[in-house]
């Protein structure tokens, strides 16, 4: 999991393999990964993903907040015809977190196995291949363990 735009010895710029440090924290000490919300210091509004400015008050400073790892699957779609270059079928969904935040995410699991209002939890997985053919790691959600 390198930094965005890491460089090879020959100076050739490689495409990203991790998306994105502002969104997803994967602690190196082995504790559980989490999504990063941003609370505006000026007005207190919590947003995900990070915005350049707080759209509510134009606040420029934010405090990072670890978002809940579990949420409810509001709706989902089994995609059979997808984006160019993406292997099908794959699954996308909206996950509502207790912090009143909705996350758009891919779902880890098999098509036909999800239902609205399922309990789901965060997982870290490849979402697609980059321009060099290497996997890009990001957040996904899967059915929550009981």
């Amino acid at each position, binding site marked *: 999991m390198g930094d965005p735009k890491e460089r090879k010895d020959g100076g050739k710029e490689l495409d990203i393999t991790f998306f994105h440090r502002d969104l997803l924290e994967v602690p190196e000490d082995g504790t559980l990964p989490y999504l990063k919300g941003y609370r505006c210091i000026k007005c207190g509004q919590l947003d995900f993903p990070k915005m350049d400015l707080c*759209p509510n008050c134009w606040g420029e400073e934010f405090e990072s907040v670890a978002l809940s790892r579990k949420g409810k699957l509001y*709706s989902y*779609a089994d*995609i*059979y015809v997808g*984006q160019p270059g993406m292997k099908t079928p794959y699954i996308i969904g909206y996950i509502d977190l207790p912090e009143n935040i*909705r996350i*758009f995410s891919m779902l880890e699991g098999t098509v036909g196995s999800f239902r609205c209002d399922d309990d789901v939890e965060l997982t870290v997985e490849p979402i697609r291949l980059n321009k060099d053919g290497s996997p890009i790691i990001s957040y996904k959600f899967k059915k929550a363990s009981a």
Partner: protein
Amino acid sequence: MKLQRDVYIAGVGETVFGKSKKDFDALGREAAYQALKNSNIDRPEIVQSAYVGNAQNGIVTGQTIFKDLGFVGKIPIINVESACSSGGMAVHLAIKDVACGLTEASIGVGAENLTLRRETGTAAMPAMNDIETMHGAVMTGKYSMRATRYLYETGATIEDLALVTVKNRKHATNNPHAWFKGKISVEEVVNSRMIAYPLTLHQCCPVADGAGAVVVCSKDMVNKLGIEKPIKVAGTVVTSGPYHNRPRDITGDDITEMTSILLYEESGIGPEDVDIVELHDAFTIAELLYYECMHFCKKGEGLKFLRDGQSTYGGKCVFSARGGMLSCGHPIGATGAAQVAANAKQLRGECKGYQVEPIPKVAMSHVTGGGLSGTEHAACTMHMIVADW
């Protein structure tokens, strides 16, 4: 936007929609030339500004279209892009020029050729710099999630969704501009290839090419041109999609509801007075939800409205009289302008074989535009036009 003075549609043009070997510029020129002739305009000097909606065919699309019509060097030609709303927005801007007194006659065009350039077997998607696109978002998927939640909450079935395609294809049967038309059964719709559950192939608008054009002008100019059946623009509204990454009800559509209310206020015409509607039926679920968002029926009663025949001939209001996107296909930047053109022809009673009877007096059109994370749509454009003779 309150119109500063009366604006009229003098003439309209639309090409056949479908797969075309003609590129966007030839299609756009064909629709524009039709609209100009239909307006009794016989030389390039009358029209004072042009707006051209296109989403995916590159740069200076408008100038490319209008070069052969002798417009370049004479008037400002402004290119307009907001994905599926582009053509509707171009017409909106032409109306605005006349309404503000900047011009006496302007033209709005929407033109697009998608099939000459597109990779087959893939779905349309929002821009790659969008966080949702990075995570696999495609337009079919966004609508599929709406459908999934709608079926979950209401107990409706895929067969119910399929009724929208059956109706719109029937409306298109004799429309020479439509592509997929005529009889299709619920079973054929449901059993066609799965695109994004529960949306099967025949519940998705075909990827198509085409163009539409609308000439608008002042009352003085309508008289000068000798237009026998001038159509008054009662209202035109463009909105941008509200942003919030919070839980929200996607069996509604905040931007369509907001835009409809603004249009009803601006035009002084409510849904009970609208005779025909062309809406953004890119997927079956959309038409069902929009009956409700546009307040033609109560929330949760869209399916009943459809089943009771309220959205077809003899019902409260005929939706997708030209066959909608589900029959005509959806050349992204063209549709919004073509909808206005098709509605104008219905008001003038010129739609032999697919004319709504009795001849409608009030027509509404609606195109949303674009996927943008945190919004239902990036844009929405609506028009209300009325017969005025």
